[in-house]
C-alpha cells in the first residue's frame, strides 16, 4: 500500500477507528453521552477526511476498492445519515435511564463502515464484505431491545431473510465469475463482449444478484420483511435501515451495473421494469391498509425504491443525478419522519398506532408541522425536497421514453397521496377531550439533540424544495466524472 492509497482510504479507516475507540471507551467507563459523542465526532471526522481524499479521486486502492467521486459522494451521504441517526438515538435512549444503549453506537459505526465499503466497492469480494459487515451489525441493531418480543422477532426475521438473500447473491456472483472469469467490475464489461461467453448464463447470474440486492432494497416480491422489521426495531434503527442501508445498496446497484456494463442486458431490464412497477403498486396499495405509522412508512419506502428504479433504468448522466438527488431528499425526509416517531415515543414503546396521532396538532403543533412537511415531501408536493426529487425522476424517465414506468409512477403517486393525506388529516383532526386524555401519553418536551436534528432536517427538506440549485450543482460536479 502506498501513501496515496492510505489517504484515499482514510475515510473508511477513520470509521473503523471510531468503532474501536467507542468500544474501548465503553470498556473504560459506561457513559451514554460519551459513547454518542465519540461516535458523532468520529463519523464527522471521517466526513472531513472525504475532503482530504477528494483530490486523489479516482484512485484504485487494490483491485477491491475504487475511491472515485461518486464513491466519495455516497460515503458522505452515508456519514451524514449515520450522524443523524446517532443524534436521534441519543435523544431517544436518554429517556430510558436504566437501558444500556452504548453498544448501539458501535454497531452504528460498523454498519456505516459496511455501507461505505459497499459504495466504494469495485470487486465482488469487497461487495460481499461490505454487505456482510452491514448486515451483521444490522441484526444486532434491529434486535437491540432484547427484552421485547417484537424486537427480537424482527431481528431474527431479518437475520434469516438477509442470510438467504446473501446466498442468492453469492450464487449469482459465482455464476457470473464462472462465465466471465473475473470478479472486477471493470473487467466484466470487456469480458462480456468475448464471443465465447454465453449471454444467457451471465443473465441468470445477474438476475440472482438482483434477487440478493432486491432483498436488501425491499423491492417487491422480496419486501415481506420490511413492515415487521420497521415495526419491531426502535425508531432510530428503523430510520437507519430505511435510509443508510438502502441508500448504500442502491448506490452499489448503480455503480455495479454501470461499471460492469450490465445495464444493456435486455432480460435484466425487463425483470427490473416488472420489479419497479410491482414495487410502486404494492408499496402504495398495501400502505392504504395499514394503521401503524411505522408500517405505513415501511410500505412507503418500498414504493420510493420503486420510483428510484425508474431513474435507474433511464440510464445516462441524468439518471445518475436524479438518483443522487432523490437519495439526498429521501434520506432527509425519512430520517425526519422516523425522528418524529422517536420524539413522541419512549424506548420499548414506540408510538405506532395512527389513532394515537389523532389531533396531535392541538398538543404538539411544532412537531406536527415537521411531520406534515415530511409527509408532503414523501408525497412529492411542492416546496419540499420530495417534489423536486420526484420531478427529476419523472424527467429522467421521460427523457428515456420509459412511458410505462412513468405512468405507473404517476398513477401510484396519486394512490400514495391517499394515505399520506389520511395521516395528515388525522394529525389535524379534532379529538374530544376525554378521548385525548385516554390515549397513549405523548412524551412531553424532547431532548435538545432530537429537536435540533429534526429542525436541521426540516430546514434541509424545505431548502431543497425551494432552491435546489446548489445541491444539484454539487451532485453534478461530484458525479460528472464517474457516472
Amino acid at each position, binding site marked *: 500500500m502506498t501513501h496515496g492509497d492510505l489517504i484515499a482510504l482514510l475515510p473508511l479507516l477513520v470509521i473503523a477507528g471510531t468503532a474501536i475507540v467507542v468500544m474501548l471507551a465503553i470498556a473504560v467507563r459506561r457513559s451514554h453521552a460519551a459513547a454518542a459523542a465519540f461516535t458523532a465526532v468520529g463519523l464527522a471526522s471521517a466526513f472531513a477526511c472525504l475532503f482530504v481524499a477528494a483530490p486523489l479521486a479516482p484512485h484504485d486502492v487494490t483491485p477491491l476498492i475504487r475511491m472515485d467521486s461518486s464513491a466519495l459522494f455516497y460515503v458522505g451521504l452515508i456519514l451524514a445519515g449515520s450522524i443523524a441517526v446517532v443524534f436521534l438515538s441519543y435523544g431517544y435512549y436518554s429517556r430510558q435511564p436504566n437501558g444500556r444503549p452504548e453498544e448501539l453506537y458501535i454497531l452504528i459505526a460498523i454498519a456505516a463502515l459496511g455501507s461505505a465499503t459497499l459504495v466504494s466497492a469495485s470487486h465482488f469480494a469487497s461487495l460481499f464484505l461490505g454487505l456482510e459487515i452491514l448486515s451483521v451489525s444490522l441484526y444486532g441493531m434491529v434486535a437491540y431491545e432484547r427484552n421485547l418480543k417484537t424486537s427480537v422477532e424482527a431481528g431474527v426475521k431479518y437475520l434469516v431473510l438477509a442470510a438467504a438473500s446473501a446466498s442468492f447473491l453469492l450464487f449469482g456472483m459465482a455464476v457470473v465469475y464462472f462465465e466471465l472469469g473475473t470478479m472486477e467490475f471493470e473487467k466484466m464489461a470487456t469480458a462480456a463482449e468475448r464471443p465465447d461467453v454465453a449471454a444467457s448464463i451471465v443473465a441468470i447470474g445477474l438476475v440472482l444478484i438482483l434477487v440478493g440486492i432486491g432483498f436488501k432494497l425491499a423491492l417487491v416480491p422480496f419486501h415481506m420483511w420490511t413492515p415487521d422489521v420497521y415495526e419491531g426495531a426502535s425508531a432510530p434503527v428503523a430510520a437507519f435501515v430505511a435510509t443508510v442501508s438502502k441508500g448504500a445498496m442502491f448506490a452499489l446497484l448503480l455503480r455495479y451495473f454501470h461499471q460492469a456494463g450490465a445495464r444493456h442486458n435486455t432480460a435484466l431490464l425487463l425483470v427490473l421494469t416488472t420489479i419497479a412497477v410491482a414495487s410502486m403498486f404494492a408499496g402504495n396499495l398495501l400502505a392504504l391498509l395499514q394503521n401503524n405509522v411505522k408500517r405505513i412508512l415501511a410500505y412507503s419506502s418500498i414504493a420510493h425504491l420503486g420510483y428510484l428504479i425508474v431513474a435507474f433504468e433511464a440510464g445516462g448522466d441524468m439518471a445518475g443525478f436524479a438518483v443522487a438527488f432523490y437519495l439526498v431528499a429521501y434520506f432527509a425526509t425519512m430520517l425526519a419522519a422516523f425522528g418524529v416517531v422517536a420524539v413522541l415515543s419512549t424506548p420499548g414503546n414506540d408510538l405506532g398506532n395512527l389513532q394515537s396521532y389523532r389531533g396531535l396538532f392541538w398538543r404538539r403543533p411544532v412537531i406536527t408541522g415537521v411531520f406534515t412537511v415530511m409527509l408532503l415531501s414523501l408525497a412529492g408536493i411542492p416546496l419540499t425536497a420530495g417534489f423536486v426529487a420526484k420531478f427529476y425522476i419523472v*424527467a429522467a424517465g421521460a*427523457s428515456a421514453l420509459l412511458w410505462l414506468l412513468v405512468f405507473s409512477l*404517476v*398513477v401510484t403517486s396519486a394512490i400514495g397521496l391517499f394515505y399520506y393525506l389520511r395521516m395528515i388529516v388525522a394529525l*389535524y383532526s379534532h379529538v374530544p377531550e376525554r378521548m385525548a386524555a385516554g390515549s397513549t401519553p405523548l412524551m412531553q418536551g424532547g431532548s435538545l439533540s432530537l429537536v435540533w436534528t429534526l429542525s436541521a432536517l426540516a430546514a434541509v427538506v424545505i431548502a431543497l424544495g425551494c432552491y435546489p440549485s446548489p445541491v444539484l450543482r454539487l451532485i453534478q460536479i461530484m458525479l460528472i466524472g464517474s457516472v
Partner: protein
Amino acid sequence: MILAWLIIILLAAGVLAAIAARWSAPLARSISLIATSLDLALILGIWVRYASEIRFGTSSPWLEQLDWTWIPQFGIHFHLALDGLSLLLLALTFFLGALSVLCSWTEITENVGFFHLNLLWILAGIAGVFLALDLFLFYFAWELMLVPMYFLIALWGHERRIYAAIKFFLFTQLSGLLMLVAILALYFLHHESTGAYTFDYEQLLHTPLSARAAFWIMLGFFAAFAVKLPLFPLHTWLPDAHTEAPTAGSVILAGLLLKTGAYGMIRFIVPLFPDAAQEFAPVAMVLGAAGIIYGAVMAFSQHDLKRLVAYTSVSHLGFAVLGVFSWNELALQGAVMTMLCHGVSTGALFMLTGEIQERIHTRELGRMGGLWTTAPRLSGAGLYFALASLGLPGLGDFIGEFLVLLGTYRAHPILAIVASIGVLAATLYALRLVQRAFHGPNENSWAISDLVPREGIIIGLTAASLLWLGLYPQPILNTFRPALHALETIVQLHR
C-alpha cells in the same frame, strides 16, 4: 419585482396570521384582510399606471415582467409576467380573497390561524398560476393551490368533508401529474429540436412538434385544465367539494380555482398546440355544450342550496370552454367576461348561502321558504344574484354569455343553439331557487336577523361590481383585448 411582492405578501401574511392567532383571532383575521386588500390595491395601482399602455398598445405584450434564474441545471426560471388578462384575473383573485376573509369572520372559530394560513397560501398559488410564464413554475403554483385547499375542505368543511376533500385532491392531483408528464415531454422534444433545455413559455411556443406528439401532449394539459374547469364528464368532484367546503372555500373554489382551468386553456393549450387544439376543438365544444345543459338540469333538481349553486358552475364554465375553443375574437372576449362575472356572481351566491346556513343551520331548500318576510335585505340580494346567474341583461353574466353565443354561432351554429337552451334552463333553476328559499309562506316560522353591516359591505361590493360589469364593461374589455390579440397573433403565425 412588484409581481413577486404580490405573492410574497400573501405567503408572509399567512405565516404571520398563523403566529398571531396564538394571541388573538381577530388579529389574524385583520392581517389576512390587510394582506389581500394590499394586494388588491397594488394590482389596481398597476392597472391605473398602465392605463395608457393598455389603451394604445406596447411593443411587448407584457406590462410587467420579472425573470430570475431559479434552477439553472434544468433551465428553470422564476419568470412572472403580467398582461391585461392576468391583471384582471389577479384583481378578481384579490377581490374575492378579501371578501372570503370577511365572510369567514364569524363562521370560522376553530384554529383561526391555520385557516388563514391555508386561505392566503391558496391565493398565493392562484396568483402564481395567473402570473407564471415558466412551465415548471406554473406547475409548482398549480400544485401549491391544492394542499391548502384540501386542508380547508377537510378541516373546516361540513358533514362529508373528508370524502369530498379526498375526492377533490385525487382528481386534481392525478390530472395534474398527467400535465407534468406532458410538460416534460414538451421540454425534451424542445431540446431535441433546438438543443436547449428550457421551460420558458415564450421559447416553447415555437417548438416544432409532430402532429401526433402535439396531440398527446395537448391532451395531458387538457386533462388537468378540464378537471379544474370542470368539464363534463370530469366534474364529479365539484358538487361534493363545493358543498362540503366552508363558505370561504366554496367562494375560492368556484370564483377562482375553476378559472385557473379556463385560463390554462387560453394561455397554454391553444397557443402551444394550435393545430392539435383546432383538431380537438369539436370534442371540447360538444363536451362544453353538454356541460351547459347537464349542469343546468342537475341544478334544477337539487335540494341542497349549495349543491344547486355548485352545479350552476358546471353550466356557466361550459360557456367558457365554448368560447375558448371557438377561438375567435368575440367568443374569446365572451369567455373571459364569463370567467370574471361568474367569479363574482357565484362567489356572492356562495357567500349568501353561507350567511343563510349560519342563521338557520340548514341548506335544505325544502326547509326554507318565506325568508323574505323575516330578512328582506338578504332575500333581495338573493334575488339579485340569482338573476345575475340566469343572465339578466344589465348584469355582468349576460355580457359574457351573449358574446360567447355570438362567437360560437359563427363557428358552430348548432352548438350555439344548444347552448342557448342552457340559458333558458338557467332561468328555471334560478327562479326555483328564489321561489323556494325566499318566497312563499314562512312555514318553519324562521325569525332571523337580516344582513349585518359586514355582510352588507360584502353584498354591496359584489352587487356593484356586477352592475358595472353589466352596464359599462368597456374598460374591462379594453384591458384584456390586447392580451387576447397577442395570443391570437401567436396562433395565426403557427397555423
